[in-house]
């Protein structure tokens, strides 16, 4: 792995006795789209603000390629931050806003106006150059905030829930645009959100935060398929949880016993230990069949139709309620309430979790 463009080491931030960040270690790679994902109050903004230099750490450090930057003021770090409320300067026009970081850096007049035009083009806002920020819609303001942050070619762009104030449709459009912008410019993005779909669809890598600690980090599909903890499994998508006993075979293969059956499991994270273990199971990985066709027997309690798929709640004597996401185009079985069904899954569908 190449040198990280930025590293956070053993970062702790306390407010009184409260730990907003608790021993966070994070490496950011050059050019990646990194997302900080977590529930409200998990410390996402705090971490971003520590990287930007607005919040001093209680202990720990932040390193860039040049060395320790923990004590450097924000203006010397060369990162740009896009705020949730955009923070466009209300006393300046759109063009002056975009020119601001260049003016601060004492660029030449002509270079500034060229670059401003270029950046406004980039976000398709060229015709709004002379407006005041208050005359723009939320989505337009967001684009200007982006243009302003990108104009001085920062090493890292920090974005704190930049789309959360926009309506759903506009959000989806801007997600595509942001992603395209990232791919085109090759700037490192550190993106904060509490929306798991946004995180999954945009990121190269996701870092999941909870209570000021990193729960797990990895590529979106990695995190989705191989959650390490119950928190990650339930925060990123939906999961069923099954109590089982894991047995390690002499050849290293793993088996789990649950519901009176024994089935093989895979240990992608290397966290499984013998003994009582909770397994996470994604609803869409479960197959439904006629009674007797699959390993476990159950009875349909409730169905909710969602178009391409339907959510089926199946009661099982030992597991309790199992949520199945069943394709509606499936012709072999059409679940309906009170129908007896059987269900099962492929090897690898059950993920052993770290015991709490």
């Amino acid at each position: 792995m190449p040198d990280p463009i930025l590293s956070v080491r053993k970062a702790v931030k306390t407010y009184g006795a409260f730990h907003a960040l608790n021993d966070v270690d994070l490496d950011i790679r050059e050019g990646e789209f990194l997302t900080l994902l977590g529930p409200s109050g998990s410390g996402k903004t705090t971490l971003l603000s520590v990287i930007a230099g607005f919040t001093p750490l209680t202990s720990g450090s932040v390193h860039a390629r040049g060395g320790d930057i923990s004590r450097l003021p924000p203006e010397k770090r060369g990162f740009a931050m896009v705020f949730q409320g955009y923070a466009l300067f209300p006393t300046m026009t759109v063009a002056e806003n975009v020119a601001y970081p260049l003016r601060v850096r004492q660029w030449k007049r002509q270079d500034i106006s060229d670059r401003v035009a270029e950046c406004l083009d980039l976000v398709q806002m060229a015709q709004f150059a002379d407006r005041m920020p208050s005359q723009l819609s939320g989505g337009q303001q967001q684009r200007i905030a982006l243009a302003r942050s990108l104009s001085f070619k920062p090493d890292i762009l920090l974005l704190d829930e930049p789309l959360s104030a926009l309506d759903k449709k506009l959000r989806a459009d801007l997600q595509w645009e942001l992603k395209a912008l990232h791919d085109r410019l090759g700037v490192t993005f550190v993106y904060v959100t509490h929306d798991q779909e946004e995180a999954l669809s945009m990121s190269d890598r996701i870092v999941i935060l909870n209570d000021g600690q990193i729960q797990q980090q990895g590529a979106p599909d990695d995190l989705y398929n191989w959650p390490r903890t119950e928190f990650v499994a339930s925060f990123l998508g939906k999961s069923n949880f099954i109590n089982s006993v894991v047995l390690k075979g002499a050849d290293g293969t793993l088996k789990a016993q649950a519901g009176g059956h024994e089935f093989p499991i895979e240990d992608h994270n290397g966290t499984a230990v013998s003994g009582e273990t909770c397994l996470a199971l994604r609803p869409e990985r479960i197959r439904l069949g006629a009674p007797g066709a699959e390993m476990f027997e159950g009875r349909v309690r409730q169905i909710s139709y969602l178009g391409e798929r339907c959510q089926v709640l199946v009661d099982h004597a030992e597991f309790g309620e199992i949520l199945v996401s069943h394709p509606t185009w499936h012709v072999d079985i059409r679940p309906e309430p009170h129908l007896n069904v059987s269900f099962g899954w492929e090897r690898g569908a059950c993920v052993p979790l770290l015991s709490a």
Partner: protein
Amino acid sequence: MNEKLHYWMLALPALAVMIVFYIWPVLNIWGISVTEPSTGLDNYTRMFDSNAVRVSFVLTFRIAAVTTIMCLLLGYVLAYTISNFATRVTPLMLGLVLLPFWVSVLVRSFAWIVLLGRSGLVNDALIDTGLITSPIRIMHNELGVLIAMVHVMLPFAVLPMLTNMRGIDDSYVKAARGLGASEWRAFREVYFPQTLPGVFSGGLLVFVLSLGFYITPALLGGGRVMMISEYITYQIQEFLNWGLGAALSVALLVATALVLLVAGRFVNLRKTFLERG
């Protein structure tokens, strides 16, 4: 009955009081200024020719201007501190700003006399510490008037600025710094321009109030610093010169109106006088 009539009925008592006790007397003063002692514009020609009147007007505008500038300088720092450094003492500071509103101007002015007099606290303290040997004059002159005026007017400058500053999110300055501006530059180019409406409001309020202010200049000036309100009182009480007194009042009214008219081009007057927080 239509709704408009309702509103008028509600406003009627206050309106009646205004007309009987304010508008009517003011109109009378206009009348007196052109009828006493003889009909015509004599009072106005006398006023424009009088050196003493000119001196008093210049003095009034100078004191009002200096008071305004001092209040804005002191008030800006105070408002900035209160709104940007939230600590446990913030409510206390706010309380101290508002406190003078509950103490009569008369009491506060007398308090300054106690402090600034020949054998007042300030002089005593300076003599005791050996910094001076005989009392210095800090009262019954322009300096004394200014000190007390700044004190009396300060809350009027602070409150509009405070309201304005509290509405400015700290993300603007953060954004500016993130974009490369130093702390000072971010303040100067991003924060300060946003506080200008508050500065103008506070300044205008202090200036207009100072122009017609009576009690404090009269007490602290001791008859030696004759601002226009005191000059008017003097003409009427000492010389029973109603005509000239009335003409001077009209002049002050017109001057104040002119100030507001000019200011109205830069400041939202409605906001300044009606929506103070």
